[in-house]
């Protein structure tokens, strides 16, 4: 195609070279089966760069909500009568299985970070991913803070930017679909939610909607 050739992508094309080698492997989705973990390790071994794209791959995302279930079998039985052929494991993001070379965050993944990644790889430079919280984007847009001014339980202070503060700009609290920002103070935000009279169940739900397997949001749940 020119600067970029797509050598293997079943959703886009028949055939392709499954065994690699690849300059860049973009991985979407979380890992929930042993065979996926094995396939991922193989892909890692034949790729120069490997980058998870989208929240499921980056931080577990929505499919990781299932990790919150204390009784996995009971949860599975809500979906299937016969669970004898299920081999589903706890949901894990990509970096819990192999080394990664960056993250394209978001659900859906951020266009800006994806473009930044591809251009950086072509220019052989370090990609400059957005690494600050949604609050910064709200300030840049002159949004009124929905947490402080309207008492909305906003996850913006602990959530990675990239959406251009989409939810607060549309009169609602951020629900963290970009996943946690590194070094976030989830504990402090959880305390604030308690002060705002959110129940512990509500706070638990806030911190497990998109980042259950992450240590950052674990602090919010406790």
């Amino acid at each position, binding site marked *: *195609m020119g600067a970029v050739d797509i050598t293997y992508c079943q959703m886009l094309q028949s055939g392709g070279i499954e065994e690699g080698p690849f300059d860049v492997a973009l991985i979407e989705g979380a890992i929930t089966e042993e065979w996926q973990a094995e396939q991922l390790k193989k892909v890692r071994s034949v790729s120069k760069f490997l980058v998870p794209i989208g929240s499921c791959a980056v931080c577990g995302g*929505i499919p990781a909500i299932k990790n919150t279930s204390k009784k996995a079998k009971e949860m599975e039985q809500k979906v299937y009568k*016969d669970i004898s052929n299920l081999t589903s494991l706890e949901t894990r993001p990509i970096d819990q299985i192999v080394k990664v070379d960056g993250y394209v965050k978001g659900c*859906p993944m951020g266009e800006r970070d994806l473009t930044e990644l591809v251009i950086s790889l072509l220019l052989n430079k370090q990609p400059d991913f957005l690494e600050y919280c949604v609050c910064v984007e709200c300030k840049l847009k002159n949004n009124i803070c929905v947490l402080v001014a309207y008492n909305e339980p906003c996850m913006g202070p602990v959530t990675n930017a990239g959406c251009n503060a989409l*939810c607060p*700009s*549309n009169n609602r609290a951020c629900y963290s*679909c970009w996943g946690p920002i590194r070094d976030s103070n989830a504990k402090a935000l959880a305390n604030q939610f308690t002060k705002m009279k959110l129940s512990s169940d*509500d706070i638990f*739900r806030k911190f497990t909607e998109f980042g259950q397997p992450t240590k950052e949001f674990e602090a919010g749940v406790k």
Partner: protein
Amino acid sequence: MVDVNKRIDVDYMARTEGEAAIRIELEDQPAIVLKIFEPPRFFEGFLAGRRFDEVGDIVSRICGICPVSHMSTAILAIEKAMQIRVSEQTGILRNLMCSSQIAASHLIHLYMLAMPDYYGKNSITELLPDFQKQTDRLIKMKEILNGLTGLIGGRALHPVTFLPGGFTKIPEQKDFDKILKQFKEIQKDAKEVVLDISRFKVPDFYFKTEYVCLDKKDGYAIDEGRIISDDGLNISVDDYYDHFEESEVDYAFAKRSRIKGRNYFMVGALARINLKYDKLQTETKKMAKEIGFAVPNYNPYLNNLAQSLEVFDLIQHCIKILETNKFKHEDYSVKIKEGDGGAMTEAPRGLLYHWYKIDSKGIVAKANIITPTSHNFLNIEESLKKMVKENLNKPRNDIRLMAEMLVRAYDPCFSCSVH
């Protein structure tokens, strides 16, 4: 022992959404297995315990192509369960989102997933540079269609303004005016889409099935109406469980649906066009005539052509709505109420059903989701069987390609079907 020479294995169905394989046994009575190995995510399991107003955001992630369908079906079901009434304007805005999403989804399927087969190519990129005009058209139209979904929803994929009760923000009129202008510009492109797809040399194949879709008195039903079929079904969505049943199979993580006491049936664009031809826009019917498409039509390969007619029709439909409506901010607050309820909409691929039981604190107690590909599952297998049987004398590679093309024609979403 199975003779391996009499077997065709497609280990990974390319150019479909999600992960599935097909196994075909080339016997006088061919055996077909559609092995949907996409791993389960257990949405119905983990939705229990989540708040009613989180459900739309969560279920939209079942699919990256039809998030609006999952979101709107779930929200309609929750509103039914909690007895929430929404304004007429909310209904109109939701319809615009559903309509624009269906057209955008169809375009992706037609050009990126289906078209390469008809020109002996592996992908849309291989069709370049010969198909540069078509590719440009796809991108331009997709952007404008997504533009409307995104204008109302905040973003086209996984919208954020869309909650039980209504919308958190209503766009300004000047933005609606701008998108209306763009929609008018792509009317002629939509005509070209129908012509592009009508050039596909579709296998001559007849598969009599029961077509099922939503229908309402006036207009082409997308997100409301009764469930009807060409075999006499005419029921309220509330009676869905009395007439449809799902069962598990040991080779797929998706469940297979059938009409009780009957058999396979088909949902999606071809079912809709067959049953609701009269309710298409006049311009669409003219277009159908021009390309020689008449109903009833029982060739599932022509689901692609039906999709292209819907693209044309839905763009006209959106233009008419945008021309005749002005939108204003409205209250969208709701009161929590215990109850249960189900709802159905036409997703791009056909009938989608969501059902929820909500407790007195607004927490989901139970959830059930039945997707278009579960509804079509048995029909895909049965039509494959018939097609293979009629083509046993052809070379294996031809049978293989025709089988893949048939599955693709349904525009299946295996990830949705497992969810």
